[in-house]
Protein backbone atom coordinates (compact mmCIF):
# COMPACT_ATOMS: atom_id res chain seq x y z
CA UNK A 1 0.00 0.00 0.00
CA UNK A 2 3.11 2.24 -0.05
CA UNK A 3 2.69 4.50 -3.08
CA UNK A 4 6.18 5.11 -4.54
CA UNK A 5 7.43 8.39 -6.01
CA UNK A 6 6.22 8.93 -9.57
CA UNK A 7 2.76 7.40 -9.34
CA UNK A 8 1.08 10.59 -8.13
CA UNK A 9 1.60 13.86 -9.98
CA UNK A 10 2.27 17.20 -8.23
CA UNK A 11 -1.42 18.20 -7.96
CA UNK A 12 -2.36 14.91 -6.37
CA UNK A 13 0.51 14.58 -3.89
CA UNK A 14 0.35 18.32 -3.16
CA UNK A 15 -3.30 17.96 -2.27
CA UNK A 16 -2.47 15.29 0.30
CA UNK A 17 0.25 17.44 1.90
CA UNK A 18 -2.36 20.20 2.24
CA UNK A 19 -4.81 17.73 3.79
CA UNK A 20 -2.21 16.25 6.15
CA UNK A 21 -0.82 19.49 7.63
CA UNK A 22 -3.84 20.21 9.86
CA UNK A 23 -4.12 16.49 10.68
CA UNK A 24 -0.46 16.36 11.74
CA UNK A 25 -1.02 19.45 13.86
CA UNK A 26 -3.96 17.79 15.58
CA UNK A 27 -2.03 14.52 16.10
CA UNK A 28 0.89 16.42 17.65
CA UNK A 29 -1.52 18.17 20.00
CA UNK A 30 -2.90 14.76 20.94
CA UNK A 31 0.65 13.56 21.68
CA UNK A 32 1.03 16.37 24.21
CA UNK A 33 -1.77 14.77 26.23
CA UNK A 34 -0.29 11.26 26.18
CA UNK A 35 0.08 10.11 29.78
CA UNK A 36 3.69 9.35 30.78
CA UNK A 37 2.82 5.75 31.70
CA UNK A 38 1.54 5.18 28.14
CA UNK A 39 4.73 6.42 26.46
CA UNK A 40 6.55 3.03 26.44
CA UNK A 41 3.43 1.21 25.22
CA UNK A 42 2.97 3.49 22.21
CA UNK A 43 6.71 3.23 21.53
CA UNK A 44 6.69 -0.54 21.39
CA UNK A 45 3.48 -0.53 19.30
CA UNK A 46 5.13 1.87 16.83
CA UNK A 47 8.03 -0.58 16.48
CA UNK A 48 5.44 -3.35 16.10
CA UNK A 49 3.75 -1.49 13.22
CA UNK A 50 7.12 -1.10 11.48
CA UNK A 51 7.83 -4.82 11.81
CA UNK A 52 4.46 -6.27 10.79
CA UNK A 53 4.74 -4.34 7.52
CA UNK A 54 7.90 -6.33 6.74
CA UNK A 55 5.84 -9.52 6.65
CA UNK A 56 4.83 -9.62 3.00
CA UNK A 57 2.17 -12.16 2.21
CA UNK A 58 1.49 -13.74 -1.17
CA UNK A 59 -1.58 -12.50 -3.03
CA UNK A 60 -3.11 -14.80 -5.67
CA UNK A 61 -2.08 -13.34 -9.03
CA UNK A 62 1.55 -12.79 -8.11
CA UNK A 63 1.67 -9.64 -6.00
CA UNK A 64 2.05 -9.21 -2.23
CA UNK A 65 0.39 -7.40 0.67
CA UNK A 66 1.07 -6.83 4.37
CA UNK A 67 -0.79 -5.74 7.46
CA UNK A 68 -0.23 -2.33 9.11
CA UNK A 69 -1.13 -2.57 12.79
CA UNK A 70 -3.06 0.71 12.83
CA UNK A 71 -6.29 -0.65 14.25
CA UNK A 72 -4.43 -2.38 17.11
CA UNK A 73 -2.95 0.96 18.20
CA UNK A 74 -6.31 2.71 17.73
CA UNK A 75 -8.13 0.16 19.90
CA UNK A 76 -5.45 -0.14 22.62
CA UNK A 77 -4.66 3.58 22.88
CA UNK A 78 -6.43 5.96 20.47
CA UNK A 79 -6.80 6.47 16.71
CA UNK A 80 -4.64 9.61 17.02
CA UNK A 81 -1.91 7.44 18.55
CA UNK A 82 -1.99 5.39 15.35
CA UNK A 83 -1.63 8.57 13.28
CA UNK A 84 1.47 9.52 15.30
CA UNK A 85 2.94 6.01 15.02
CA UNK A 86 2.34 5.62 11.28
CA UNK A 87 3.64 9.15 10.57
CA UNK A 88 6.97 8.08 12.09
CA UNK A 89 7.04 4.57 10.61
CA UNK A 90 6.22 5.70 7.05
CA UNK A 91 8.84 8.47 7.21
CA UNK A 92 11.59 6.02 8.20
CA UNK A 93 10.41 3.47 5.63
CA UNK A 94 10.62 6.10 2.88
CA UNK A 95 13.96 7.65 3.94
CA UNK A 96 15.94 4.58 4.98
CA UNK A 97 14.41 1.77 2.94
CA UNK A 98 12.92 3.47 -0.14
CA UNK A 99 9.53 1.96 0.74
CA UNK A 100 6.89 4.53 -0.25
CA UNK A 101 7.81 7.82 -1.88
CA UNK A 102 8.84 11.15 -0.41
CA UNK A 103 6.45 13.04 -2.67
CA UNK A 104 3.76 10.45 -1.89
CA UNK A 105 4.54 10.47 1.85
CA UNK A 106 1.52 12.55 2.87
CA UNK A 107 -0.82 10.39 0.77
CA UNK A 108 0.62 7.25 2.35
CA UNK A 109 0.18 8.63 5.87
CA UNK A 110 -3.36 9.64 4.96
CA UNK A 111 -4.17 6.08 3.83
CA UNK A 112 -2.37 4.01 6.47
CA UNK A 113 -2.19 6.49 9.34
CA UNK A 114 -5.58 8.19 9.11
CA UNK A 115 -8.13 6.26 7.03
CA UNK A 116 -7.04 2.83 8.31
CA UNK A 117 -7.01 3.46 12.09
CA UNK A 118 -10.06 5.75 12.16
CA UNK A 119 -12.22 3.44 10.03
CA UNK A 120 -10.91 0.47 11.99
CA UNK A 121 -11.57 2.13 15.33
CA UNK A 122 -15.07 3.43 14.59
CA UNK A 123 -16.07 0.09 13.08
CA UNK A 124 -14.81 -1.57 16.28
CA UNK A 125 -16.67 0.91 18.47
CA UNK A 126 -19.90 0.57 16.54
CA UNK A 127 -19.84 -3.25 16.72
CA UNK A 128 -18.81 -3.26 20.37
CA UNK A 129 -20.98 -0.48 21.79
CA UNK A 130 -24.02 -0.50 19.52
CA UNK A 131 -24.28 -4.15 18.51
CA UNK A 132 -22.81 -5.55 21.70
CA UNK A 133 -20.21 -7.77 20.02
CA UNK A 134 -17.16 -8.68 22.11
CA UNK A 135 -14.10 -6.44 22.04
CA UNK A 136 -12.04 -9.23 20.45
CA UNK A 137 -14.46 -9.87 17.58
CA UNK A 138 -15.19 -6.17 17.05
CA UNK A 139 -11.51 -5.28 16.83
CA UNK A 140 -10.84 -8.10 14.35
CA UNK A 141 -13.66 -6.98 12.06
CA UNK A 142 -12.60 -3.35 12.57
CA UNK A 143 -9.05 -4.17 11.43
CA UNK A 144 -10.43 -5.97 8.38
CA UNK A 145 -12.70 -3.10 7.35
CA UNK A 146 -9.97 -0.57 8.13
CA UNK A 147 -7.25 -2.10 5.96
CA UNK A 148 -9.58 -2.88 3.04
CA UNK A 149 -10.92 0.69 3.12
CA UNK A 150 -7.41 2.15 3.25
CA UNK A 151 -6.30 -0.02 0.32
CA UNK A 152 -9.37 1.02 -1.65
CA UNK A 153 -8.64 4.70 -0.96
CA UNK A 154 -5.04 4.15 -2.14
CA UNK A 155 -6.49 2.52 -5.28
CA UNK A 156 -8.71 5.57 -5.84
CA UNK A 157 -5.74 7.94 -5.47
CA UNK A 158 -3.75 5.94 -8.03
CA UNK A 159 -6.74 5.49 -10.34
CA UNK A 160 -7.77 9.15 -10.56
CA UNK A 161 -4.21 10.19 -11.48
CA UNK A 162 -4.66 9.49 -15.25
CA UNK A 163 -7.68 11.83 -15.28
CA UNK A 164 -5.87 14.59 -13.37
CA UNK A 165 -2.52 14.54 -15.18
CA UNK A 166 -1.35 11.77 -17.50
CA UNK A 167 2.24 10.53 -17.46
CA UNK A 168 2.21 9.21 -13.91
CA UNK A 169 0.23 6.17 -12.68
CA UNK A 170 -1.19 4.81 -15.95
CA UNK A 171 -3.87 2.62 -14.40
CA UNK A 172 -7.42 3.90 -14.27
CA UNK A 173 -9.91 3.43 -11.43
CA UNK A 174 -11.43 0.35 -13.05
CA UNK A 175 -8.05 -1.40 -12.71
CA UNK A 176 -6.47 0.12 -9.60
CA UNK A 177 -9.42 -0.06 -7.21
CA UNK A 178 -10.25 -3.76 -7.70
CA UNK A 179 -6.54 -4.66 -7.66
CA UNK A 180 -5.90 -2.89 -4.35
CA UNK A 181 -9.19 -3.94 -2.76
CA UNK A 182 -8.95 -7.62 -3.70
CA UNK A 183 -5.34 -7.99 -2.52
CA UNK A 184 -6.43 -6.78 0.91
CA UNK A 185 -9.82 -8.54 0.96
CA UNK A 186 -8.23 -11.95 0.49
CA UNK A 187 -4.81 -11.69 2.12
CA UNK A 188 -3.93 -8.73 4.32
CA UNK A 189 -7.51 -8.22 5.58
CA UNK A 190 -7.95 -11.68 7.12
CA UNK A 191 -4.39 -11.52 8.51
CA UNK A 192 -5.08 -8.11 10.07
CA UNK A 193 -8.31 -9.45 11.60
CA UNK A 194 -6.60 -12.46 13.18
CA UNK A 195 -3.55 -10.56 14.47
CA UNK A 196 -5.65 -7.68 15.85
CA UNK A 197 -8.16 -9.99 17.53
CA UNK A 198 -5.33 -12.05 19.05
CA UNK A 199 -3.52 -9.00 20.44
CA UNK A 200 -6.75 -7.51 21.83
CA UNK A 201 -7.66 -10.89 23.37
CA UNK A 202 -4.28 -11.07 25.09
CA UNK A 203 -4.40 -7.47 26.30
CA UNK A 204 -7.96 -7.88 27.61
CA UNK A 205 -6.76 -10.86 29.61
CA UNK A 206 -3.57 -9.33 30.97
CA UNK A 207 -4.56 -5.66 31.22
CA UNK A 208 -8.37 -5.37 31.39
CA UNK A 209 -7.86 -1.94 32.98
CA UNK A 210 -6.78 -0.54 29.59
CA UNK A 211 -10.31 -1.09 28.37
CA UNK A 212 -12.15 -0.24 31.58
CA UNK A 213 -10.15 2.95 32.07
CA UNK A 214 -11.12 4.19 28.66
CA UNK A 215 -14.78 3.38 29.07
CA UNK A 216 -14.81 5.42 32.28
CA UNK A 217 -12.94 8.29 30.62
CA UNK A 218 -15.30 8.29 27.64
CA UNK A 219 -18.45 8.19 29.75
CA UNK A 220 -17.16 11.15 31.73
CA UNK A 221 -16.59 12.88 28.42
Amino acid at each position, binding site marked *: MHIPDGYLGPYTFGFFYAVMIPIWYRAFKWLKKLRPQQVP*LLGVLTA*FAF*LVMMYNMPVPGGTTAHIVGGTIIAVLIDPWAATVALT*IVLLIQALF*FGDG*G*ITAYAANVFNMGVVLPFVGYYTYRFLNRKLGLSEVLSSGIGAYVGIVTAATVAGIELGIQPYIQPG*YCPYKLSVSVPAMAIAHLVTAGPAAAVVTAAVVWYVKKSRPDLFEMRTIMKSRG
Partner: protein
Amino acid sequence: MMDRLTKTLLVVVAALIILSPIGILLVWNYSDAWGEWDVSTVEHMVGQKLPGMEKLANAWNHAVLPDYNVPGWEDKLHASIGYIISAVVGVAVVLAVYYILVRLAAS
Protein backbone atom coordinates in the same frame (compact mmCIF):
# COMPACT_ATOMS: atom_id res chain seq x y z
CA MET B 1 8.86 2.60 33.97
CA MET B 2 7.49 -0.28 31.99
CA ASP B 3 4.42 -2.39 32.68
CA ARG B 4 4.15 -6.11 32.03
CA LEU B 5 2.19 -5.70 28.79
CA THR B 6 4.88 -3.46 27.30
CA LYS B 7 7.53 -6.02 28.33
CA THR B 8 5.59 -8.83 26.65
CA LEU B 9 5.23 -6.71 23.52
CA LEU B 10 9.01 -6.10 23.58
CA VAL B 11 9.50 -9.88 23.44
CA VAL B 12 7.07 -9.98 20.50
CA VAL B 13 9.08 -7.21 18.78
CA ALA B 14 12.30 -9.22 19.27
CA ALA B 15 10.63 -12.34 17.86
CA LEU B 16 9.31 -10.37 14.86
CA ILE B 17 12.85 -9.14 14.15
CA ILE B 18 14.38 -12.63 14.27
CA LEU B 19 11.59 -14.19 12.20
CA SER B 20 11.38 -11.28 9.71
CA PRO B 21 12.98 -13.23 6.79
CA ILE B 22 9.67 -15.11 6.55
CA GLY B 23 8.39 -11.82 5.11
CA ILE B 24 10.59 -12.18 2.01
CA LEU B 25 11.04 -15.95 1.76
CA LEU B 26 7.27 -16.56 1.53
CA VAL B 27 7.04 -14.24 -1.48
CA TRP B 28 10.47 -14.93 -3.01
CA ASN B 29 9.13 -15.55 -6.52
CA TYR B 30 6.39 -12.95 -6.31
CA SER B 31 6.50 -9.51 -7.88
CA ASP B 32 6.16 -6.33 -5.81
CA ALA B 33 2.92 -5.28 -4.19
CA TRP B 34 0.39 -3.90 -6.69
CA GLY B 35 1.36 -0.38 -7.76
CA GLU B 36 4.86 -0.53 -6.27
CA TRP B 37 6.80 -1.53 -9.39
CA ASP B 38 9.69 0.59 -10.67
CA VAL B 39 9.25 2.87 -13.70
CA SER B 40 10.74 0.58 -16.33
CA THR B 41 8.53 -2.31 -15.18
CA VAL B 42 5.37 -0.20 -15.40
CA GLU B 43 6.34 1.24 -18.79
CA HIS B 44 7.01 -2.28 -20.05
CA MET B 45 3.65 -3.53 -18.71
CA VAL B 46 1.56 -0.76 -20.27
CA GLY B 47 3.73 -0.38 -23.40
CA GLN B 48 4.11 3.39 -23.19
CA LYS B 49 6.50 6.01 -21.82
CA LEU B 50 5.50 7.77 -18.61
CA PRO B 51 7.51 11.02 -18.56
CA GLY B 52 6.03 12.32 -15.30
CA MET B 53 6.80 9.11 -13.47
CA GLU B 54 10.33 9.00 -14.90
CA LYS B 55 11.00 12.48 -13.58
CA LEU B 56 9.69 11.83 -10.07
CA ALA B 57 10.67 8.21 -9.53
CA ASN B 58 14.12 9.07 -8.21
CA ALA B 59 13.00 11.97 -6.05
CA TRP B 60 14.77 10.18 -3.20
CA ASN B 61 17.68 7.84 -3.83
CA HIS B 62 19.54 8.06 -0.55
CA ALA B 63 17.96 5.03 1.11
CA VAL B 64 20.76 3.29 3.01
CA LEU B 65 19.06 -0.10 2.94
CA PRO B 66 16.93 -0.03 -0.22
CA ASP B 67 14.18 -2.66 -0.19
CA TYR B 68 15.22 -3.61 3.35
CA ASN B 69 18.47 -5.15 2.18
CA VAL B 70 22.19 -4.50 1.99
CA PRO B 71 22.78 -3.62 -1.69
CA GLY B 72 24.15 -6.62 -3.55
CA TRP B 73 23.00 -9.27 -1.09
CA GLU B 74 20.82 -11.10 -3.59
CA ASP B 75 20.68 -14.76 -2.55
CA LYS B 76 18.19 -16.02 0.01
CA LEU B 77 20.66 -16.32 2.87
CA HIS B 78 22.23 -12.89 2.42
CA ALA B 79 18.87 -11.22 1.74
CA SER B 80 17.54 -12.78 4.96
CA ILE B 81 20.46 -11.38 6.96
CA GLY B 82 20.00 -8.03 5.22
CA TYR B 83 16.34 -8.14 6.18
CA ILE B 84 17.12 -8.77 9.84
CA ILE B 85 19.68 -5.92 9.81
CA SER B 86 16.99 -3.67 8.28
CA ALA B 87 14.51 -4.71 10.97
CA VAL B 88 17.00 -3.83 13.73
CA VAL B 89 17.97 -0.50 12.12
CA GLY B 90 14.32 0.34 11.42
CA VAL B 91 13.16 -0.36 14.97
CA ALA B 92 16.07 1.61 16.43
CA VAL B 93 15.47 4.67 14.24
CA VAL B 94 11.68 4.53 14.67
CA LEU B 95 12.07 4.45 18.47
CA ALA B 96 14.63 7.28 18.40
CA VAL B 97 12.32 9.50 16.33
CA TYR B 98 9.38 8.56 18.55
CA TYR B 99 11.15 9.57 21.75
CA ILE B 100 12.37 12.84 20.18
CA LEU B 101 8.78 13.61 19.16
CA VAL B 102 7.46 12.74 22.62
CA ARG B 103 10.09 15.09 24.13
CA LEU B 104 9.13 17.88 21.73
CA ALA B 105 5.45 17.42 22.52
CA ALA B 106 6.11 17.46 26.27
CA SER B 107 8.16 20.66 26.18
